[in-house]
């Protein structure tokens, strides 16, 4: 059993250390300059202005034109005045997302369905790449250049183990197939 840190902490008595630190606090740039006894329990605190009942009557910015399909949480009435246009829903993953947005953010259905859509989207992305003549390059895209430079031995070990497991799996499957074929011949 290692000599765990908690068995060696006689020296770490809290108040003693805190007092000692405070005695030399002047050596720490900025020490105590933002201390505020009123700041407890601290931000975020509500800033009341005497007219909180008017807080929802704010002037809204103009609406960004809705020139694409944008999902919105059913916990709000419509899309926000401004929204992102990064990657509109498409294909099967889009259909799954459309289903997810029928449920509130309080439900597992909403979030887990989105996670499922994300995984489908990855396959869809690969098919799209191929459709556009783009061949994925895992060596570059997975940052294996960096692994080769900074983590070579572990990287080679992992690659060898993976290759070994794949080979063993293929051999096992081909053995099963040949024994099935054999039994059919019988």
């Amino acid at each position, binding site marked *: 059993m290692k000599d765990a840190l908690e068995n060696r902490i006689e020296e770490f008595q809290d108040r003693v250390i805190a007092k000692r630190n405070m005695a030399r606090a002047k050596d*720490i740039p900025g020490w105590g300059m933002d201390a505020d006894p009123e700041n407890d329990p601290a931000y975020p605190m509500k800033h009341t202005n005497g007219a909180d009942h008017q*807080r929802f009557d704010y002037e809204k910015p103009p609406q*960004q034109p809705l020139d694409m399909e944008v999902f919105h949480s059913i916990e*709000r009435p419509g899309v926000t005045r*401004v929204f992102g246009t990064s990657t509109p829903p498409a294909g099967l*993953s889009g259909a799954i997302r459309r289903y997810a947005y029928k449920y509130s953010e309080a439900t597992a259905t909403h979030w887990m369905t989105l996670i499922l859509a994300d995984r489908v989207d990855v396959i869809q992305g*690969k098919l799209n790449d191929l459709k556009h003549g783009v061949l994925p390059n895992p060596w570059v*895209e997975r940052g294996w250049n960096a692994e080769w430079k*900074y983590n070579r031995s572990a990287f080679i070990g992992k690659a060898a183990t993976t290759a070994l497991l794949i080979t063993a799996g293929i051999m096992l499957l081909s053995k099963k197939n040949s024994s099935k074929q054999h039994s059919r011949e019988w």
Partner: protein
Amino acid sequence: MLAMNFRGPYQIRADRNRPEPEIKHPMDAIVRVTRSLICGSDLHLYHGLVPDTRVGMTFGHEFTGIVEEVGSGVKKLKVGDHVLVPFNIACGSCPHCKQELYGNCHEANAEATAVGGFFGYAHTGGGYDGGQAEYVRVPYADVSPTVIPEGMDPENAVLLTDVVPTGYQAAEQGGIQKGDTVVVFGAGPVGLLAARFSWFFGAGRVIVIDELEYRLEFARKFAFAEAYNFREMDDPVVFLKKATDYFGADVCIDAVGCDATGSAFQNITGKGLLLQAGNATAFHWAVNSVKKGGIVSIIGVYGPPWNLVPLGSIMNKGITIRGNQASVKRLLPKMIDHIMSGRINPKEIITHRFPLEEIPDAYRMFSKKMDNIIKPLLIPPRANA
């Protein structure tokens, strides 16, 4: 243009064929990126832990850039301004923005009400493309983007877009009082800054817990903290109780979030099966290590916001155990003052600089903590065009 292109978990492309962004709203601006960073929370996207992270997205919520074009409604910014762009997209007029909760704006994220609008942070964060690109569309350009003060180091400026205010808010949310003992879980960039800023509130003792020796050493030097490796402990909670006269720390800060390590059970249920909002080990340690009546400050990002305990919502909505996304705009004046006065030089945490073209390697290195990496900076080819 050249931009990061997400192709699925652990797979990204430096894509030269991305379309340039356009003005879509009168209050938009187009910014040519001069510097961007990879954030620890980008890794949650990279690892596939955040729902609705769509293939084809560009990440990046920490960037600076030159204003190239402005919409008809933009009044404060002008073409040619060199701006730092806070990661929160905020309208500036809704009740949340009026309360300075810029990370919770009601008019920036259609897809989720529990989460604000953020650059490059999945459709859960509003579906905006981010700054790991040559150009970005910046909505509500008059609200948060801020002209970089004269004389400020550009690397400090880009750190002001998220990590510096986030570290500060982590400490602030803890309500640290003079002499308090603060424990920070996680010695990543945000944890390091949270530890360093804890002193600004008058902490009497700052303890950092992590598993990587190089990060612990960095915490000792950069944050003047006591730093301990939880791999050397039988039980971090028992260690911290013993280290605090069996009372617990006054304040515990979770600066880790869903990608935590240290518990096989949490790993399987959180990161493998996604039955909770990621691996909540750091949060559990924080809750268990804090004294009775103490404060737990969550600044780590969590995954799918459904859960037995809705951690993601707690964190993103700032409703209970002091958690929220940093309100960058609110904190900027104070942060600028701290940097310009020399009290802190945050660019010390930038350990690696990559051309944007090498972004897949940068993500891999940051994800696997290779070459003692703390914070990677990306420089687009047209940074100085």
